[in-house]
């Protein structure tokens, strides 16, 4: 049973008629009567993106959620999610890591930390954003609250990114709600045959935008926000100057060598390391193989005819350098989405 938080975490109630109430929510068909908040509410004049997905995610989904959360937040985008285990939590984590603003919409009272395991997030999020809930304090996390909660997540965002979802996933409810509210839905493509990519690939087939890089998200997000600015006639953020500033920051931070995309960061760092000779020959060979596909220890041992001892040593060298990652005996190149 989730425990109540101490009194200093008492949520504040913001009614629908209050000026502070997020204007994005007023455009919904069934807006909440009000919101209970710990921390702050998402600003109306900053772009905001929802990142949602499966609770049980793969290492790939985890990397992508964290990466999107981190990089988008660093660009001044507000990250909205549900603080659930898996994708939601990792998106928040990424946003917090870059010091950006992030908001969690809960399916229980805002004074209850659910799931218990995300206590750190629950404590950190209000410092940089807020914990939001439509339910009065003390409401328990009951299953039927969550679809209701999902419509607020999409309602608060300009754009919804689904990172990983099974065929029947709660994240698809969020996507549906987003479409009803006229929000753009983006999906992260996955491998055909992966259960966790069935939902997202299905969304893509139905016409969702492809979220294949941070830039691809920004490319869609900025014009959307521009348009919204015109309809809402809001003054502060997406002023022309602000927009220019944002793109400028993108130029500087994400395209250090004037090249394509942030996702290639890891790889270029790797190729630099190979060229400068800081990596051992075996480690460089491992990277060449992993660049094509993920491999197990046995695969690598056979393809490289290396003995187990020196292979372990080279793999650790790469892990410490942040070039590769390991999950349950399978090795992946970090350049494919992380760090």
């Amino acid at each position, binding site marked *: 049973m989730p425990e109540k938080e101490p009194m200093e975490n008492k949520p504040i109630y913001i009614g629908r008629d209050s000026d502070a109430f997020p204007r994005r929510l007023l455009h919904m068909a069934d807006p909440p009567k009000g919101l209970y908040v710990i921390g702050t509410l998402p600003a109306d004049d900053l772009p905001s993106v929802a990142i949602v997905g499966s*609770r049980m995610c793969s290492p790939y989904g*985890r990397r992508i959620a964290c990466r999107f959360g981190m990089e988008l937040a660093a660009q001044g985008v507000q990250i909205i999610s549900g603080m659930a*285990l898996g994708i939601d*939590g990792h998106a928040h984590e990424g946003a917090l890591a870059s010091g950006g603003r992030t908001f969690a919409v809960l399916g229980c009272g805002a004074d209850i930390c659910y799931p218990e395991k995300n206590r750190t997030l629950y404590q950190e999020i209000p410092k940089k954003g807020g914990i939001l809930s439509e339910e009065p304090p003390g409401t328990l996390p009951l299953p039927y609250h969550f679809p209701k909660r999902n419509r607020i997540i999409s309602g608060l965002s300009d754009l919804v990114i689904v990172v990983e979802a099974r065929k029947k996933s709660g994240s698809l409810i969020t996507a549906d709600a987003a479409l009803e509210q006229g929000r753009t839905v983006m999906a992260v493509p996955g491998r055909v045959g992966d259960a966790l990519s069935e939902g997202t690939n299905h969304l893509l087939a139905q016409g969702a935008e492809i979220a294949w890089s941070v830039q691809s998200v920004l490319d869609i997000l900025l014009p959307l926000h521009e348009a919204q600015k015109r309809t809402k006639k809001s003054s502060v953020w997406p002023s022309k100057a602000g927009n220019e500033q944002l793109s400028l920051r993108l130029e500087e931070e994400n395209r250090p060598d004037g090249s394509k995309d942030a996702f290639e960061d890891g790889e270029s760092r790797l190729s630099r390391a190979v060229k400068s000779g800081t990596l051992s020959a075996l480690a460089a060979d491992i990277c060449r193989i992993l660049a094509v596909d993920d491999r197990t220890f046995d695969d690598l041992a056979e393809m490289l005819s290396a003995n*187990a001892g020196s292979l*372990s040593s080279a793999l*650790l060298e790469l892990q410490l350098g942040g070039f590769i990652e390991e999950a349950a*005996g399978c090795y992946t190149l970090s350049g494919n989405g992380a760090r």
Partner: protein
Amino acid sequence: MFQNVISAAIRGLEILPVHVETDVSNGFPQFRMVGFVTSQVREAEDRVRTALRNVDIVLPPKRITVNLSPADVPKSGSRFDLPIALGILAAARMIPPASLTNVMAVGELSLSGSLAPVTGILPIAVKAKELGIGSLLIPAANLREGRIVEGLDVIGFRDLPEVLAFLSKGVRPKEEDAASLPTPLNIYDVDFSDIRGQYRLKRAAEIAAAGFHNLLMEGPPGAGKTMAARRFPTILPSLTADESLEISQIYSVAGLLVPERPILGVRPFRSPHHTLSPAALAGGGRIPRPGELTLAHRGVLFLDEMPEFSRSALETLRQPLEDREIVISRAMGTYRFPANFLLVAAMNPCPCGYYPDMNRCRCSANAISAYRSRISQALLDRMDLFVAVRAMRYEELTGSDTAKTPEPSARIRDRVEKVRGLQQARFSGTGIRFNSEIPASRLPELCPIDAETDTLLSRAFSVLHLSARAYHRILRVSRTIADLDESERIRKKHVEEAIDYRPRVLGSGPDEEYRP
């Protein structure tokens, strides 16, 4: 008249000499037995009386008192039947009392007067020799076991008349096959060459065997964890004579020695089922008997499906993993059992076993978290080597993709023996046997590292969030890896490999593995 016969009681694994004092005097005919005896010993009265009658010895109608001294040591078991019978006969002057000086006797009597085998003969013989006993009288069925101890006259008897003939006329019983000293048997019907692929697992097993490091395997069902564990004894370093005698004594007390080959030639491999109780693991009973931890002494304790063991059973492992012995306290005193074993454990990553294969795993995050948290961090901290085992592909299983035949156990074992030799030379006179036993205080001296390796370790600590205890573990494993490499110095690559075997299961859910 009074007679004293020496026998022996077992207290834990310790043998205590017991004086069976018998007094036969005039008075109302009765049989009394005193001296902290359990009901098993009390029943000796009926067995002795009937056995004597059935070999045509009629006890005089006198008052018989038997005292088992020291009276503050609890005595159990049936091994006092023979000394009690001999005490009565000598006190009644039916055998010459002098024949029982410097003699120790143990054995159970059957109603027909024949002698039945008892447990604990080996440690009793060791103790008898220590005490300077001249001859040890035991049941014939225990003769092979008793004869393992040299420099002691061990005589085996089939029945009571043989004992009487020996004591009164000096006639030694006929020995059928001259009970020759058995040769240790160490032949296995499994071999590491049965396992294709799994290079990392095999390498880890080799390191574990060479330095006696604990090994944890995690992987989906059918990946080959149990198969590898079953083959683990085939690469263990051989037993020394001392070790063999030490563990054979434990098995003797537990009654687990095979009469035909009553000395263990190979290291024990214990694989208890996961339903076992903490008492069965640690040693239980009012007078505790050795449990699985002690039976695995100097050998391997294999826990298959580790999270399925009860939490209390798993926590029982912690003290012996640290102290290499287990201390059990009972109302009658504290018992110490040796428990210096190598722990090999296998576990599934989640209740269904397939996580993180998300196409097959249907476990919820909470279920995975709950499953993993059954293994406490304290226990994980004591695992030196961790290997994630992958399920095999068909080509790997059939070996059609590689012509190479896997290395046989004998070759791996040669390398293990070599490393064992290095360790014996390094630790001679210190009481340490394997690298895993190096105390933290002696690590800087025995596992020195250079500046380059130190940089690596400090980097690994910040990047991989290692614990302080992990540092010692990594150094000990590095020492073994360097030994396998026949390198006196511990080099950077050795430490790198050792770090790569760090435990990855955090005792938590899948979410906490990653920090941005």
